[in-house]
């Protein structure tokens, strides 16, 4: 035991001696969470729109004013002919063009009907669709104002209540995601590298002939990183509470427990990676190339899992990050306890045991 503690001490010294890595290790998560919490949003704001007004009358001017008054759009230019649409779309800034038909006001009075084309640059389907919907909503509102003297017909009005995130802040979506990415990659990457580093530099052999058992070598190497990751997780949670005003509706204790569990899962994955790679380079490429995109794309961090094709929904189940994101959102935003999260928790525990079991099987006591 004393030897083992000595070994852990050595590992700590090893990490703390490298000031630059430490700085990166703690500075990075803070910088990332600040950037993303403030900057990244999938809301639609300030979309540049151009107007092609064939009519230029009182009604079209009023509609244009209504649209430019909305925070979603800024009308950046007026064009005069149809062929200009293609030109400005190719430049890339303008995302939509409103095309008013000739004699708009006149048609509205005479036929009670007039037409607007909403032409969108649909290379980005999300923006195109949202712009189209928002313009439509503004026009419907305007139409209602014009029709206010007409007797009302039957009307069912939905009273919508947005629960768990009433202001629809996208930071509520991104903070748990960024926290997951950081913990996952930092923990998995660090362990896999620190173990393969010993192999590559030849010092692993020295460790293996020492009286410390192989299992103790692994635990000794992983232990300091558990400690570092816990500090990282704490910093991230504090930042999200105090700077981004994320609520913690549920138990802080449970959040701590689940974070430690997830850190251990990621570390176990790191150990597994280190057993299958011979060089640091391979280990890093596997953890970066193999983990980064799947964690970003398949965890429900940015894209809703329920909209994915079925095979991908099934694959997403093997991504530990998916379960952790469900857990964090559950505790922080919904305020639920273990009675709602036991399934996700068990899955993470199961994955951890599986990775460790597999590593033990693959771990060779003798090096070739």
């Amino acid at each position, binding site marked *: 035991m004393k030897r083992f503690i000595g070994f852990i001490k050595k590992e700590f010294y090893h990490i703390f001696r490298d000031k630059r890595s430490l700085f990166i290790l703690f500075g990075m998560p803070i910088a990332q969470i600040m950037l993303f919490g403030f*900057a990244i949003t999938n809301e639609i704001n300030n979309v540049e729109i151009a107007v092609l007004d064939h009519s230029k009358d009182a009604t079209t001017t009023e509609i244009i004013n209504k649209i430019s008054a909305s925070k979603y759009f800024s009308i950046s230019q007026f064009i005069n002919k149809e062929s200009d649409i293609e030109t400005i779309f190719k430049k890339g800034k303008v995302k939509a063009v409103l095309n008013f038909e000739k004699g708009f006001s006149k048609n509205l009075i005479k036929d009670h009907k007039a037409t607007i084309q909403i032409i969108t640059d649909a290379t980005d389907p999300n923006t195109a669709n949202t712009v*189209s919907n928002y313009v439509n909503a503004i026009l419907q509102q305007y139409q209602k104002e014009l029709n206010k003297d007409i007797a009302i017909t039957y009307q069912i009005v939905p009273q919508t209540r947005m629960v768990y995130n009433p202001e629809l802040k996208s930071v509520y979506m991104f903070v748990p995601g960024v926290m997951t990415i950081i913990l996952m990659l930092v923990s998995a990457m660090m362990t896999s590298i620190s173990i393969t580093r010993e192999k590559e530099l030849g010092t692993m052999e020295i460790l293996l002939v020492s009286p410390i058992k192989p299992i103790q070598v692994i635990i000794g190497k992983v232990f300091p990183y558990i400690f570092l990751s816990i500090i990282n997780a704490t910093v991230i949670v504090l930042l999200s509470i105090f700077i981004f005003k994320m609520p913690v509706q549920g138990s802080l204790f449970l959040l701590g427990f689940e974070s430690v569990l997830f850190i251990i899962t990621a570390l176990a994955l790191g150990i597994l990676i280190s057993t299958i790679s011979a060089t640091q380079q391979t280990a890093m490429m596997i953890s970066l190339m193999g983990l980064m995109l799947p964690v970003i794309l398949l965890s429900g961090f940015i894209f809703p899992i329920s909209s994915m094709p079925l095979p991908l929904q099934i694959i997403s189940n093997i991504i530990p990050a998916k379960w952790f994101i469900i857990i964090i959102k559950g505790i922080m935003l919904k305020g639920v306890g273990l009675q709602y999260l036991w399934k996700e928790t068990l899955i993470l525990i199961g994955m951890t045991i599986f990775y460790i079991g597999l590593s033990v099987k693959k771990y060779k006591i003798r090096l070739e």
Partner: protein
Amino acid sequence: MKTILYIIQKEFKQIFRNKGMLPIIFVLPIFQLVILSNAATFEVKNIKFGYIDNDHTATSRALIEKFNASTYFNVLTDFPSEVLASAAMLKGEVDVLLEIPHYFERDLQKEKQNSLGVTINAIDGAAAGVENVYVTQIVQRFNQSIKVDLLQVSDKQIQPIAIETIPLFWYNKTLNYKTFMVPGILVLLVTMITLFLSGMNIVREKEIGTLEQINVTPIKKSQFIIGKLFPFWVIGMGLLTVGLILAKVIFNIPMIGSLPLLYLYTSIYILVILGIGLFISNFTDTQQQAMFIAWFFTVIFILMSGLFTPIESMPKWAQTLTEFNPIRYFVEVMRMVMLKGSGFKDILPQLLKTAIYAFVMNALAVWSYKKTN
């Protein structure tokens, strides 16, 4: 010249000798392009829908039927009580909950107006917004249909004014997400591979100690750097080619613009990335440090590139930051050239900025590279 060729040869041999790396360089990215492009969609569908019907009349059932018929909402659950319904929402089994009040039909007939409880799980704010639009649309359509069914006296005397909107979706009529995402993800893969490989390469020799051996040879600094980086440039261009072919064959992504233009841009772009990689290599002592820094910038570059979330929606200061993000320009150029057929003049701003970036990065990298320790 001959020296450079030898170094290049040596580097290629070294890359291809490492059998473990080959699949990571070529197979993993391709695999990810093919699989993950399917995951990147903001489309909101398969919404988990539940309802509590306190009215049990023809009208309430007709309304629920409308939701049932819609393609967006698929799992319909009938909850007998509000308690069970909110528990299901906490568990994440339902995302949208419709509550039809008692005496819904009677009050509607009497007062011509009635309200309806809708609860939406808004943790994903953007999805919640879209779900709200869907619900409103279905209810509005229902309003129009009950006009006909429940209206006893016709008041057709006054015809309401209607502004008709015709939405037209250019360049991507079916609003297919893959058309948007595949070129972007290809950008990511090319960038990540070239950055990680080049960022780790020189520092690896430093760590193992072989760099000193090279330093005592008569190889010039510039020859060494060019020889080191050229293979990665080739790998990057190779990945782009394979990716473009797959994009066409598997996803049928259009290639409206000029292919040579795309290659011209990419050839300059990879120089930027290689410059960054070399710069990182110079400032770190171990592969671990190099990787952390590369990873740090990659995550920031990816998430702030406009690839997944629009740049226009970011606050002004963040938009200014994206000006320094090379991935941003590559994503823009790929989408513009491939999907819209933008020409040389249209992408000139991006091309110029990237070229300046490439020059500055490589100058810095070469300047900071010291042959002697």
